[in-house]
């Protein structure tokens, strides 16, 4: 297991990191000095941190009212809403970026609506604002999710005790509830900072090189074949994000797990007839919900709408026609949609098949409490901290360009590399799903099975795996969705047209001007991607449930 990871992760990434300090086999700090001493790069890192900080603040601000709504109020669809907060996370980021273009672009849905009431147009594309909004789209639900969970685990009896001792409701919230929420808020903030620090497709599509972050610039340097410079950038970025992940893991480990006992806070009904309209708190939440719909549903709806309408607002199927014409085009260098779709599905299945056992193994290692397993867990968690571009670059430098082993030159090509990279990107999410489920299983079930005659492996198959089946299915769905949406590494590794995936094709269509200056082709491809992602997610879930039913 670790050996696999060494080959497909540590070796490639190590090669990137080492090239920052090794030139022709000699240790040197020249590349590091060159980058760190260059005011341009200092500014680049500064700007990257700045936009990550702003994105974090906005994501927390947008996420917290959501947690309040979900944790403290009861309304139809609450459970559904609570479970869809996970969805943005698995949506392909390049598709979301195109959604934001469709929503907030010059001729986008937002400006169309503004012009109806005689306002606008507002220029958002190419500004920091739209990047931060798109980051909030991804990370605010994460904040909501983590804080809601913490809020729901507050033991009513503690609040009631505070109240009986004389605390007002507000005071009890401040003294009892808030201290339990703050760790969740900080955890989600640190995660958001890490994710937005390494953000790539959103900044690439919405900001371009004018608003480049480290990741975008890194990509640009790779495209210009300035590989040493790119590697140095990647090494510094990886060091920074590893530091952040370390802080996050240390912090997460110190958090006290709430006791499973106790009663949970009761939820208040959100709708209380006409009185809902005079209660400032509920009015605030209604306004918030409206904003949330604009931010979260808007871009996806705009993606579909723009793919079916001309800039003048008339219905059209031209953009889908464009996809068909690309398919039948014989011109060299044309990215055909159908192979992209089948590549995506194929890579998705491959990544799923690889990531699932990897994820299960990591979970099994993680829940064993010994020093060796701590180290193994840390080594197995590290891929979270390494950006897709750095991994992709490492793959290019090692396995793809070839590597010497026992005198033989070994090269691994396109699809296999892409599938492994996707699996590396996906298995942490499998682990995230499986570890809680696995550690939730009473050890005595396995003890009992073994006393009855089952050996350890048989007990795993007979007892543990069936009990974590729902988590396995969820993990599989995640792995598949992550693979389908993966852009950062794939765009570097999908050389030429043969192994382009849907997100890569989508990015190529953004710049396509064959139908005039229109986002149409990209939105059409984006809609196809959205449909394929949704259908496969639902299919995996359904199949899983049927298989799970006994």
């Amino acid at each position: 297991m670790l050996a696999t990871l060494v080959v497909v992760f540590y070796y490639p990434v190590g090669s990137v990191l080492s090239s920052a300090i090794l030139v022709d086999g000699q240790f040197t700090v020249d590349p590091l000095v060159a980058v760190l001493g260059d005011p341009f790069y200092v500014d680049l890192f500064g700007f990257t941190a700045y936009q990550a900080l702003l994105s974090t603040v906005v994501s927390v601000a947008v996420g917290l009212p959501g947690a309040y709504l979900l944790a403290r109020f009861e309304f139809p669809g609450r459970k559904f809403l609570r479970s869809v907060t996970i969805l943005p996370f698995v949506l392909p980021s390049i598709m979301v970026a195109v959604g934001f273009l469709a929503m907030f672009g010059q001729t986008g849905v937002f400006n169309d609506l503004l012009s109806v009431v005689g306002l606008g147009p507002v220029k958002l594309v190419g500004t920091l604002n739209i990047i931060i909004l798109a980051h909030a789209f991804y990370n605010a639900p994460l904040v909501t999710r983590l804080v809601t969970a913490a809020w729901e685990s507050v033991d009513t009896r503690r609040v009631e005790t505070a109240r009986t001792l004389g605390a007002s409701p507000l005071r009890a919230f401040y003294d009892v509830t808030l201290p339990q929420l703050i760790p969740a808020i900080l955890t989600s903030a640190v995660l958001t900072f890490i994710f937005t620090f390494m953000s790539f497709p959103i900044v690439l599509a919405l900001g371009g090189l004018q608003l480049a972050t480290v990741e975008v610039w890194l990509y640009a340097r790779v495209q210009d074949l300035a590989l040493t410079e790119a590697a140095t950038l990647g090494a510094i970025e990886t060091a920074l994000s590893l530091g952040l992940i370390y802080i996050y893991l240390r912090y997460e480990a110190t958090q006290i797990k709430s006791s499973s006992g106790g009663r949970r806070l009761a939820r208040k009904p959100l709708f209380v007839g006409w009185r809902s309209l005079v209660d400032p708190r509920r009015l605030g939440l209604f306004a918030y919900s409206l904003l949330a719909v604009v931010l979260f549903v808007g871009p996806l709806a705009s993606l579909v709408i723009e793919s079916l309408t001309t800039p003048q607002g008339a219905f059209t199927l031209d953009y889908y026609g464009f996809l068909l014409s690309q398919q039948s085009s014989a011109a060299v260098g044309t990215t055909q949609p159908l192979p992209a779709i089948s590549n995506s599905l194929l890579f998705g299945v491959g990544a799923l098949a690889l990531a699932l056992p990897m994820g299960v193994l990591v979970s099994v290692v993680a829940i064993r409490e010994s020093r060796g397993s701590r180290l193994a867990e840390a080594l197995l968690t590290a891929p979270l901290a390494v950006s897709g571009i750095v991994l992709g670059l490492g793959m290019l430098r090692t396995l793809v360009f070839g590597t010497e082993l026992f005198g033989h030159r070994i090269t691994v090509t396109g699809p296999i590399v892409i599938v492994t990279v996707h699996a590396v990107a996906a298995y942490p999410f499998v682990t995230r799903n499986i570890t809680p489920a696995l550690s939730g299983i009473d050890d005595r079930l396995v003890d009992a099975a073994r006393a009855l005659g089952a050996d350890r492996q048989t007990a795993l198959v007979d007892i543990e795996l069936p009990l974590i089946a729902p988590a396995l299915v969820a993990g599989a769905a995640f792995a598949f969705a992550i693979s389908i949406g993966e852009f950062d590494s794939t765009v570097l590794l999908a050389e030429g047209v043969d192994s382009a995936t849907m997100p890569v094709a989508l990015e190529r269509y953004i710049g396509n001007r064959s139908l005039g200056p229109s986002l149409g082709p990209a939105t059409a491809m984006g809609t196809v991607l959205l449909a394929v992602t949704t259908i496969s997610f639902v299919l995996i879930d359904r199949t899983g449930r049927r298989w799970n039913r006994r």
Partner: protein
Amino acid sequence: MTMKETNSIPTPDASVDVTDLRVRFGSVTALDDVSLSIRDGEFFTLVGPSGCGKTTLLRSIAGLETPSEGQVIIDGREVTAEPPESRNIGIVFQNYALFPHMSVAENIAYGLRFHDLSGDRDPDERVAELLELVDLAGFGDREPDQLSGGQQQRVALARALAPEPDVLLLDEPLSALDARLRKQLRVQIKTIQRELDITTVYVTHDQAEALAISDRIAVMQDGQLQQVDTPEAVYRDPASRAVAEFIGDNNVFSGRVTDDGSQLSIEGGLLPLPTGTDTADGTSVTLSIRPELLSIYTDNQPVDGQTLSATVNTVEFLGDAYHVHCLWNNRTIVVKAAATTPPKGEVTLQFDADDIHIL
């Protein structure tokens, strides 16, 4: 007595033997040099306060803990290094540990996948037989979560017994149940154990349960055995202060033997020593006397035997008697009094010096 060929068996008729067993968890020694012989067909109970090592000992017999030193021998076969699945044991846990994704019948049948039944019996028949044994005939198709706690525990017992194990191990099986059910079920467990004549190791922190159910008891503390004997002997003749205080209610005093060797001087008072006590003056001695061996008199009439003057502090009503907590020289002495009204005020405590037990 016949000699066995192998000399690895310390006691020829023992079904479970544990020799010099030591188990460590990091720097904590959970079991410290424990040796035990549990006889064939015996109902043997490990009892002690939480953290005393009783569960660790049971789990070591099951193969669920790995001892750093010592041996575990089941039915004459050394199994110290063997995994649990090859020891032919049945185990029941406090929280039942039923497989939630299997029906009651599937739970019971699980162990039969790995064992051949004696006389080539049909597994389905065996399951039905066991459901009958634990009074759950007709419950086979239920899911575990459709059963009450007591029913779930009976399924766990049936599951453990199904593969015809050599030894039945029970880890606090009744602790999660309410008091009434606990008493009913312990009678049922004992009855089944007698019926099957199966060697049984039972772990509990409840000394009353241990006394009620066992052929023999091992009292444990701090990873060590304090005393191994019949319930009667452990109760009447405790081997240490720890046993005297843990098993049953007791009054325990420590002090020094007086100059004439006939009394024990404890802070603020003198207590008689039983006749024939062989102790030099000045030695420190611990003695105990059970609450039921003391009598309590409220009227100031002179009474025979040894007496102490005391004051009633608190009274607990037990139904058939009172537990009277008296203060004598700032020490509490508990007396079990079968009176119809609770005693109060100044009282005289009377006892026979020979009922005092020297520890």
